[in-house]
């Protein structure tokens, strides 16, 4: 067994020395983040610059962003296993890995953010059944379990593990029941993505965030789910593109990328039309009914009206229009520009819905609230990036992540 190769057959990988050097560099960043994490756990949340105005801060933005960007996993799974877009099976492994990294990072950030991680299980046992965040915690944990189950068959395809008869059968049988897990993932994602948006939309004491409702759900509930399904696949495409650049190989055929980009483009354009309608109704009906004008929310040098333009036009309509046109998708520069803009757009949306909500003054005698994260907050936010790079590096080296790699890079 020890003589069997660890690296999948028919593919080239860099030398052990080069790989070790890369891993050491990324691990150094990881250790910095872990040190900051232990400082926070040992000394408490006084290591952060959160305060009475900023109960939600950098971590919650990072949390919401990685959850939105990890949405590529559930949406790709939905398209592959339920809609039947078989072509996307060529990227589903990578989408699952990205989702696994994003959701494990989100859970890690939450264990730091709650201050007392040893009491983390209280949310399940002493659940507040009137809180959207309880639903988020339930769905997040369950969906992480689903992503882990979706990741396991790929791990078991490692040449050494695949030789074990039981593991070989397990891989086969897990692939067989994968549509059930994919459907469960879609169900869970719909609710936790939505509820994260719903949390902002129900804050009736914060007119910047508050939105009109459909039954018990504010508009932000649907917009968050929609934007995650729209922009998550763009993050998957961005991840594939970066992996191709680093490895200097073509890993996925262009028609697969273009198909995902096209679907993502239509999702983005429909989302941004709905977002525009929501913004207009909020600006001209909801906010004035509570004594605010639109410009009250954009009177800060940091949070000015340009931010709204960037989010809706530059990072919304522009990438959407590029991705729905054939010429846009076929031009490599335009395609990747649109993908990057979409990723920036959804991250900016989460920033606005978390941090600008906290910054806006609520009373005429208040000024804009300011917040600058401590180095511990920054380090623990960068920690998931280093962790993600390590997981992707290990997965790419030892697992058959890209089914088309052999065909696209034949070994002489």
């Amino acid at each position, binding site marked *: 067994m020890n003589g069997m190769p660890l690296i999948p057959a028919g593919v080239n990988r860099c030398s052990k020395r080069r790989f070790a050097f890369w891993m050491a560099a990324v691990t150094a960043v990881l250790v910095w983040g872990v040190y900051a994490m232990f400082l926070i756990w040992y000394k408490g949340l006084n290591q952060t610059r959160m305060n009475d105005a900023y109960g939600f801060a950098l971590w919650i933005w990072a949390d919401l962003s990685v959850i939105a960007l990890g949405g590529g996993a559930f949406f790709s799974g939905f398209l592959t296993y339920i809609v039947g877009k078989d072509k996307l099976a060529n990227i589903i492994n990578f989408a699952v890995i990205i989702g696994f990294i994003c959701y494990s990072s989100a859970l890690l950030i939450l264990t730091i953010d709650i201050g007392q991680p040893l009491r983390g299980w209280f949310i399940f046992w002493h659940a507040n059944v009137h809180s959207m965040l309880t639903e988020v915690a339930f769905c997040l944990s369950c969906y992480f379990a689903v992503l882990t189950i979706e990741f396991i068959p790929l791990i078991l395809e490692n040449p050494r593990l695949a030789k074990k008869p039981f593991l070989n059968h397990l891989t*086969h*049988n897990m692939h067989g029941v994968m549509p059930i897990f994919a459907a*469960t993932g879609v169900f869970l994602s719909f609710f936790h993505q939505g509820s994260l948006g719903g949390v902002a939309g129900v804050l009736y004491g914060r007119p910047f965030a508050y939105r009109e409702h459909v039954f018990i759900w504010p508009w932000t509930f649907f917009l968050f789910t929609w934007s995650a399904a729209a922009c998550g696949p763009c993050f998957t495409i961005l991840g594939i593109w970066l992996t191709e650049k680093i490895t200097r190989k073509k890993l996925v055929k262009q028609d697969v990328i273009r198909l995902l980009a096209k679907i993502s483009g239509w999702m983005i354009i429909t989302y941004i039309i709905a977002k525009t309608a929501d913004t207009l109704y909020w600006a001209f009906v909801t906010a004035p009914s509570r004594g605010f004008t639109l410009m009250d929310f954009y009177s800060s040098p940091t949070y000015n009206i340009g931010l709204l333009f960037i989010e809706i036009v530059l990072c919304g309509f522009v990438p959407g229009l590029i991705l729905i046109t054939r010429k846009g998708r076929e031009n490599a520069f335009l395609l990747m520009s649109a993908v990057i803009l979409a990723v920036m757009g959804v991250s900016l949306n989460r920033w606005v819905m978390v941090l600008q909500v906290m910054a806006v003054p609520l009373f005429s005698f208040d000024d804009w609230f300011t917040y600058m994260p401590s180095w511990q907050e920054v380090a623990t936010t960068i920690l998931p990036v280093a962790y993600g790079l390590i997981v992707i590096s290990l997965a790419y080296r030892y697992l058959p992540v890209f089914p088309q790699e052999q065909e696209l890079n034949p070994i002489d």
Partner: protein
Amino acid sequence: MFPFCFEWVWDMPHMVFMGGLWYALSIIGAGLTFAVVKSIIDMKSHDGQNQEHH
């Protein structure tokens, strides 16, 4: 939280929230159990066939 815990109340929020959680966990657990049990059965039948060939 289970219905036999002292905090449990038989109202709609508890039934929807906790019911949803246990429903999702049941599907995940059942799917995983099916895959593991079928793999054991497949492996044993495969071993049996191999022994017959020998």
